[in-house]
């Protein structure tokens, strides 16, 4: 019995020794400031950056106060300048009573000026630090990141959560708008691709300020060289295979059409042809008619034929527009280089160094086939005539 007792005491003492010495990783919820947005701007000094953190402000609320909950900004902005991101965060930690908690960071915003200088050297922190998650959205701000992060949103208490929701719903139209950190890293690692990042603009109109997604920024290497506005974004998205149900509005000589293309089957293949490499695009889709204006006195058959042709034309035009623009900028935003590498690795090894010269000369052969399948509740619009024997 004594031996039994001794052993038990020994075990208990040893275990308590480990447990009572302290809780090292224990952070109570009211000792952390939850960062929801991170912004990087250019500072005057070339070496330094201006770091902005958007921190959620937790209001103490026992749930029994029945005051009015008006739109109030429930976040605060912290700002400092330093050489690197983590040292800037350390600086900020000294200014707040709570330690900074990055795990719930929703967005990373780069200021345009900073992107023009290059972002690759700052990406290291995002990949290395454990608290930065790879699925954070990346954005470029039209002005400064601080502007975007300081703008409150009407429907959301916390603007970063609102931003992330905006991107999420925006990505239903064009998935190109959702760029996660991991996508950006992956594209930066590819040698020939130019990454694209969505651009956010803050607008101040008569007192109320809003943010909106206004295009895609193009980076070459890691520096900003240009941007795609919303029409070109559409042209870009057609080929990237990111579209699910995308609207298309066309002005023809007979009237105005608003259609949406869905059920897209895209074949996007790089090939080697007689005179060098080219991209062959094979596009098949279904057209759903959303709105027709005009087309007076025409019957359905004719209308839909015109419609279909117009859509095909418009599609080709948009795709080529965007492609030519990217060729002008010499930025392989589509990742064609990577596609070549994936399918013809040996040939690509030779082409790699000259990609900058090859890309502007690259040819694109587009085949578009569209079918009008869905016209909504009615076949004819009010203006169009019934199909009668006379007009046949």
């Amino acid at each position: 019995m004594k031996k039994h007792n001794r052993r038990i005491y020994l075990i208990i003492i040893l275990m308590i020794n480990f447990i009572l010495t302290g809780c090292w990783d224990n952070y109570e919820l009211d000792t952390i400031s939850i960062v929801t947005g991170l912004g990087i701007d250019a500072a005057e000094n070339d070496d330094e950056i201006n770091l902005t953190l958007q921190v959620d402000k937790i209001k103490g609320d026992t749930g029994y106060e029945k005051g009015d909950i008006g739109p109030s900004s429930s976040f605060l902005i912290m700002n400092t300048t330093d050489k690197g991101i983590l040292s800037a965060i350390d600086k900020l930690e000294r200014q707040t009573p709570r330690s900074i908690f990055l795990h719930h960071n929703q967005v990373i915003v780069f200021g345009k000026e900073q992107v023009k200088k290059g972002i690759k050297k700052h990406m290291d922190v995002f990949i290395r630090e454990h608290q930065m998650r790879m699925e954070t959205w990346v954005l470029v701000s039209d002005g400064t990141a601080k502007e975007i992060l300081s703008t409150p949103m009407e429907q959301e208490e916390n603007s970063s959560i609102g931003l992330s929701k905006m991107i999420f719903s925006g990505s239903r139209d064009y998935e190109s708008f959702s760029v996660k950190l991991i996508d950006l890293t992956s594209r930066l690692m590819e040698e020939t691709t130019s990454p694209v990042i969505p651009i956010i603009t803050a607008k101040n109109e008569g007192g109320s300020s809003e943010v909106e997604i206004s295009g895609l920024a193009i980076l070459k290497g890691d520096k900003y060289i240009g941007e795609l506005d919303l029409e070109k974004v559409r042209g870009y998205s057609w080929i990237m295979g990111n579209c699910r149900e995308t609207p298309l509005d066309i002005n023809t000589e007979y009237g105005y059409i608003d259609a949406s293309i869905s059920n897209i089957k895209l074949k996007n293949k790089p090939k080697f042809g007689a005179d060098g490499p080219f991209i062959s695009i094979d596009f098949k889709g279904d057209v759903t008619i959303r709105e027709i204006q005009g087309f007076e006195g025409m019957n359905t058959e004719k209308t839909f034929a015109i419609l279909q042709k117009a859509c095909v034309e418009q599609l080709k035009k948009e795709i080529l527009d965007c492609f030519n623009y990217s060729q002008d900028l010499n930025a392989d935003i589509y990742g064609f280089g990577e596609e070549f590498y994936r399918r013809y690795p040996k040939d690509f090894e030779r082409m790699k160094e000259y990609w900058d010269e090859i890309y502007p000369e690259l040819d694109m052969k587009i085949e578009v086939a569209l079918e009008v399948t869905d016209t909504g509740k009615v076949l004819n619009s009010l203006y169009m005539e019934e199909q009668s024997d006379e007009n046949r």
Partner: protein
Amino acid sequence: MKIDNGKISASQFMFTVACFIQASSLLTAFFMSVTKQDSWIVSIIGFFIGMIFLWIYTALMKRFPNKNLVEINDLVLGPVIGKIFSCMYIYFFLTLSALNLKDMGDFVGMAIMPNTPTIVILALFMYICAWAVRSGIEIVTRYSLLFTLTASLIIIATFFIAYNQIDLNNFLPIFNQPFIKYVQGTHIISTIPFGEVVVFLMITPNIEIPINKIRKYFILGFAIGGISLILIVLRDIAVLGNVITLFTFPSFETLRMMRLSGTLGRMEVLFAVILITLMFFKISFLYYVSVLAISQIFELNSYKNLVVGVGTIIVIYSFNLYYSMIQHMEYGSNITPFQWLIYEFLLPLITLIVAKARKLSSSEEGN
């Protein structure tokens, strides 16, 4: 002479093998950094090479069904050389336990609780393992079915949840790397996860199945574990693509990225959960085998007194293995596979050949 009288049934043995191999899903970074997007090919080839190792082990098990590895060495190679072989095996088992323990400690320390001193994590973990080991082989392997099922369910579930983020283009280009990389990758994977099943030779006397069925159950368990590992590799490559070479724990990053819907994301807790339970299983098993081997070499009556001592040795040993993760990765990819090859392939092969030459088997007593 059996020190431990516990009995393991056939299916329990099968699931123990499966669980053991599934626990190595943490170590995929070793060969992923070498063969990048072709890691799945390397895994499949390594699986088959592991089967070759398996053939050697089951041949030994069939010849000596009621003797464990230390006894086989003594019997086949004579008292002196046999003991030397067994001592080398002890070094192997101790190193394996310490390595796995440190891996787990590193993972928990880096990803979950950075500020806690590692000794606390490791020591507390070893307490539970020591308790299990002290209670015998039956306790150590009792939960094999439960753990294997849970781990397999989680793997399959994450496969489906990650479906949205799988991009099959990440597998291209295939076979584009220099041939030596494939050899290296195969070498790594056949020794580090798959070859470690040599430790099961130590518990042969405790398994309760007729001799001719050992091979079937062993291969089945091996297959279950191997398929889980290959599935994990496939999933990681598909989701992460070319970023995979950056991470030290690729599966962890994959699980971090998955979202069920809207706000229900952050699945890395699943990874941590299965990892800690599976590692508990593997480390207690390796711990048990080390203690058993040591007590058999010194011909003790019971191994229970050694448990605490060996546990302390393993914990302290694990701190001295390598200085940093960088060294660990480098060793793991380049040096360790050659070392393990000796213990997993060479030594058992020599034992088998000598046994065949001397026409020894346990069914006949004496030479």
